[in-house]
């Protein structure tokens, strides 16, 4: 594990670089344990890392780094499987035909492959409610669009690389748009303001 500063009150603890449920589970457990410390203001898990916002008036950088090294060695607590969300999708996205042609698959096969796995929410971030879901079946993996769209509507169901997700807000975006859902992923009137939590599971179904 590597610990390095992101500033003078923030550090990054990197556990690994894989897209992997076990690694992500360890990162989540470490973030949860760090959040309980009085000298930590916020701990945010990534795929295989934790960003720690700490109070330098209560702990030194070296002191906290040492504590994190020790915490990582502890056996992670047994993690309960995350909540399962079933998300209805209308598969009529503007990129569906192009994706089918590039992957040499029929639209039906793309829908079948995309709805087959139970995806894990590895991380929430980038914009409010954006959930990084994966891993995507190998057969569906494509690099991002060469020219990103300047406007992607909220609710667009999309994929890129080994990831899939739902645009929570109308934003620019470079992922391939497969369809749309009416389920809201950003819930501005709730706290937390997102449908998903890191560690939750998602399965799409076609309607």
């Amino acid at each position, binding site marked *: 594990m*590597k610990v*390095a*500063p*992101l*500033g*003078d*009150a*923030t550090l*990054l603890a*990197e556990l690994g*670089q*894989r*897209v992997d449920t076990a690694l992500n589970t360890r990162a989540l457990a470490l*973030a949860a344990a760090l959040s309980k410390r009085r000298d930590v*203001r*916020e701990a*945010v*898990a*990534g*795929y*295989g*890392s*934790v*960003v720690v*916002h700490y109070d*330098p008036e209560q702990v*030194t*950088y070296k002191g906290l780094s040492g504590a994190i090294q020790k915490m990582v060695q502890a056996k992670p607590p047994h993690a309960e499987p995350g909540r399962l969300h079933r998300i209805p999708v209308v598969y009529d996205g503007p990129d569906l035909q192009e994706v089918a042609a590039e992957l040499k698959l029929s639209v039906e096969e793309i829908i079948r492959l995309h709805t087959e796995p139970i995806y894990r929410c590895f*991380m*929430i*971030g*980038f*914009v*409010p*409610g*954006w959930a*990084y879901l994966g891993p995507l079946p190998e057969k569906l993996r494509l690099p991002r669009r060469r020219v990103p769209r300047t406007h992607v509507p909220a609710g667009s169901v999309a994929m890129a690389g080994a990831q899939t997700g739902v645009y*929570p*807000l109308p934003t620019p975006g470079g992922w391939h748009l497969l369809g749309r859902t009416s389920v809201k992923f*950003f819930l*501005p009137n709730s*706290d*937390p*303001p*997102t449908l998903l939590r*890191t560690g939750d599971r998602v399965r799409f179904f076609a309607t």
Partner: protein
Amino acid sequence: MVQDLGRPGRRGFGVTPSGAMDRFALSAANLLVGNPEGAAALECALSGPTLVALTNCLVAVTGADFGPTLNGEPAPCWTGIFMAEGDSLAFTGRVWGARVYIAVAGGLAAERWLGSAATYSLVARGGFHGRALKAGDELLAAAPAPRPAVAELMLPAQSRPPYDEEPSVAAIAGPHLRRLSAPSRRAFFRELWAVGRDADRMGYRLEGPELEISGPDLVSFGLSMGCVQVPPAGQPIVLMADHQTAGGYPVVAGVARVSLPLVAQLLPGDHLRFREVSVETAQSEWRRLRASLDSLRQ
């Protein structure tokens, strides 16, 4: 727009902290009028508003110098100013800096969202209906002035951050600095960087020597204000108050808290130089600057 010291504890849901770009100036403005330092106040980029007092109040103007005037006469910055009903606070034009802060005794009444009054434009939440102010909007104080309005506190220039149009910005070596080639690492900390045209509340794109960066793609991780990312094309981006909460570009350095106000006051075309400091040095420089805010508490 209305800002405070930011929205705490929601990064893990993708909600960026927002809040004042120059947090020192916002804190100082609040303390100068007797408010808690994180009260809601105005952040005005590039030009100042004309504000007419609907009732007697104490205000303070800090941050950039946009030539403040009270009823047409020059008004001082970094000090409390008493406004009587009908008085007009206006700005003649930018002298230096990017953002002015205006605090009113009692703090501004503002829409709070997830624990903060900070305006977050992307989702149109917080502050004044989630948007920038426009002519005709009426602002109310959140509470009566916290103490008798005595307009005499002031923060002298030597107690403020060393604002400059070409500041030396303290930065700490980040987790992926070694992904830069050795010449690029030297260039990063030695060369002059220009603030590019894309410079807003989310971040500043910097222009200067092209940096050579290599290494396999990173899986996404959390980010914070002050992180300096380097995308493959080699032009760094400094993340600011409305930054994305996660990303996968290498982070080569982190701007120290003590220098974030200096960056917050830069505009496209201004320059900066990074100076490498240790975490411990950055923290002690911050404590010294922080002490001048504490001297304003009564």
